[in-house]
């Protein structure tokens, strides 16, 4: 039980599970988004888009939970071996990752809300998710479609940077930055 929450020396299971779950769904959503707009069959495309919306709403819920958890929990500091530049840039990169995690599902929600197609959202066919109260128009739809597209590519670039940094910590710097996000038994030292 004690390993659920974070301490000043390690991450707990809640943080670890949320991190990887969101990471996997986030990359899956990028791939799904890329594929669904290139699918020839209109039926398959429609179904993939509905799945993308369902996963997007799930992601939004998980991210809100994660931000709340992050704000209410201590985060272990970086190992002492990490240099000054990284010490300053890492929190900024992480802040940017949080911004994208929120902005992507929200921009998708805005897109379906303003779309003149008026297709309802029903995450996993469980309930009807209301639209954001934004006026619908073709212009607003193309604006949010572009915003969602740019955010997706910028977000996935940031994720790639994040993955490279983690791999660098593990294989080049040989510190615990990656392993402490895999299991709580890996402490900061």
């Amino acid at each position: 039980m004690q390993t659920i929450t974070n301490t000043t020396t390690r991450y707990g299971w809640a943080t670890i599970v949320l991190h990887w779950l969101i990471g996997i769904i986030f990359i899956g959503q990028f791939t799904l988004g890329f594929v669904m707009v290139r699918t020839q069959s209109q039926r398959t495309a429609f179904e993939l888009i509905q799945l993308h919306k369902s996963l997007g709403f799930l992601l939004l819920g998980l991210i809100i939970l994660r931000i709340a958890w992050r704000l209410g929990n201590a985060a272990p500091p970086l190992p002492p071996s990490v240099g000054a530049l990284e010490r300053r840039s890492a929190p900024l990169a992480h802040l940017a990752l949080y911004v994208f995690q929120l902005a992507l599902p929200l921009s998708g929600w805005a897109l379906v809300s303003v779309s003149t197609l008026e297709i309802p959202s029903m995450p996993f066919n469980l309930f009807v998710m209301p639209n954001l109260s934004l006026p619908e128009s073709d212009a607003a739809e193309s604006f949010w479609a572009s915003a969602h597209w740019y955010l997706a590519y910028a977000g996935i670039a940031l994720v790639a940077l994040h993955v490279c940094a983690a791999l660098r910590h593990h294989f080049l710097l040989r510190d615990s930055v990656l392993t402490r996000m895999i299991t709580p038994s890996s402490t900061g030292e």
Partner: protein
Amino acid sequence: MRARILGLAAAAACLAMPVNAAVVLGDATGSYTISQAGSAIRFTIGKAGGGGFDGAFARFKGTIRIDNNDVGRSKVDLTIYPESVGTGQGRIDAFLRSDAVFDATNSPEIQFRSTSVSRTGDTTALVTGRLTARGKTFPEKFTADLDGLKGGTIKFHVTGKVLRSRYGMDVGTPLYSNVVDFDMTLTGRRG
């Protein structure tokens, strides 16, 4: 005084209606060609969370044969061209025409052939028949209400519900209802 006038009016209406209907049906016997002018085939599909979307078919053809001596031998044939579907939203029209829904290229016609007609009232009838869409045929029922008969022109208001899933058009359920509500005005011209 007012009550007496109302009563009189009601009695007059009761007397007038069956007579009127009898005249109408007596005159109706014959064959009619459904004309697109004066006719409309509209449909509505309910949407999760309320509302729905409406559409209409712009092109169709058909015949109505009314046999007043034996109403059961009356017949309705209707062919709808799904390529002509219109909802007011071009992207939805393209989706409906595609193989996601009508597959209009490979199945250019939706056909209804009545198998029986039974009177349900002075001006109403239940029309049972076989509906064929995308190569699948199922029995369907429609309610026809005689809306007018003037000269050689006859007009019916036809309503009915069709389950789209049976015709391989279940895409989008349960976001969009499986029930398609038809609301048609069919105007036939004699001959």
